């Protein structure tokens, strides 16, 4: 009988934790510069090497930033990227193997990009095009859950 008051909070916290872990999504963000100055792929982008070669015609890929972020529903995560730009990621919802994520890229109070994507394990969403240095900026976003 004495154990009951202790067991109840443990059970409730267990339920809370499991529900939170179900709702959260682990994301990997890689920001890199693609250009035709020089050649070669950064060692931390090797796993994307074949993909990059088949999709783009740049000769050089240089990693600028790599981050892992855990997203919780409706809690925006702001990550600064190169050239006074920042990316905002917000988890909108999650269904089995698909996470709906809102992505905003801002520069000087302007929305360069405002989009919502469905991320599934194994799929990469690459956002590219903004000029950076001698080349362009590419942001690769993927989810793990």
């Amino acid at each position, binding site marked *: 009988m004495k154990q009951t008051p202790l067991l109840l909070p443990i059970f409730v916290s267990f339920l809370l934790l499991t529900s939170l872990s179900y709702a959260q999504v682990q994301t990997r963000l890689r920001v890199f510069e693609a250009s035709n100055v020089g050649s070669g792929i950064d060692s931390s982008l090797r796993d994307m090497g*074949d*993909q990059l070669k*088949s*999709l783009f015609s740049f000769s050089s890929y240089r990693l600028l930033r790599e981050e892992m972020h855990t997203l919780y529903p409706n809690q925006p995560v702001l990550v600064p990227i190169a050239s006074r730009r920042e990316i905002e990621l917000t988890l909108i919802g999650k269904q089995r193997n*698909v996470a*709906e994520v809102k992505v905003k890229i801002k*520069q000087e109070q*302007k*929305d*360069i*990009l*405002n*989009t*919502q*994507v*469905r*991320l*599934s394990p*194994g*799929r*990469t*969403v*690459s*956002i*590219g*095009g*903004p*000029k950076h240095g001698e080349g362009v900026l590419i942001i690769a976003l993927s989810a793990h859950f």
Partner: protein
Amino acid sequence: MKDICSSILRLLNKYFDQEVTPRERILVEDHLKECRSCQKSLKFMEELRSLINLQIREATQEEDLPWLWQKIERGIHLQERPTLWQFIQSWLTSSPFLKKKVWIPVVATLGSFLLISTQIFYKKIPSHPDLSVVEYVESQTHNIMVYEFDKPKVTIIWLFDVVDKDSTAS
């Protein structure tokens, strides 16, 4: 005597149908030996019965009732508890709707209907329902193009600089 006759007449029908008890039977037969009017009554009953039987026999011979016979036959078969396959076979042979003239057009119509409906159904379902990764996309500063690939699993959102018309004209 008349009282005896009236009571015997009441038993006569039962006697004629052989439904009397042995004691009643002896009573009726003893009385019939002595009473002419009761004998006449019995004879009349016999004649009437044979006449009715004859009429029925003639009626059934003149009227060909195959349907009745089929029903009786089916009843006999049902009593024998046929297997499911036998039941289906008998139903197939007896049912007028399952003659070749009927079922061939019916099957052809159903087949063509199924073919058309499945074509419509499959057209309505997209072949790659999970391919659409980008729900919406907009930009205040750039033109956007979206590329989706299934192998490798990559979606590319590419931002193009907006070309200023005034600057290009000058």
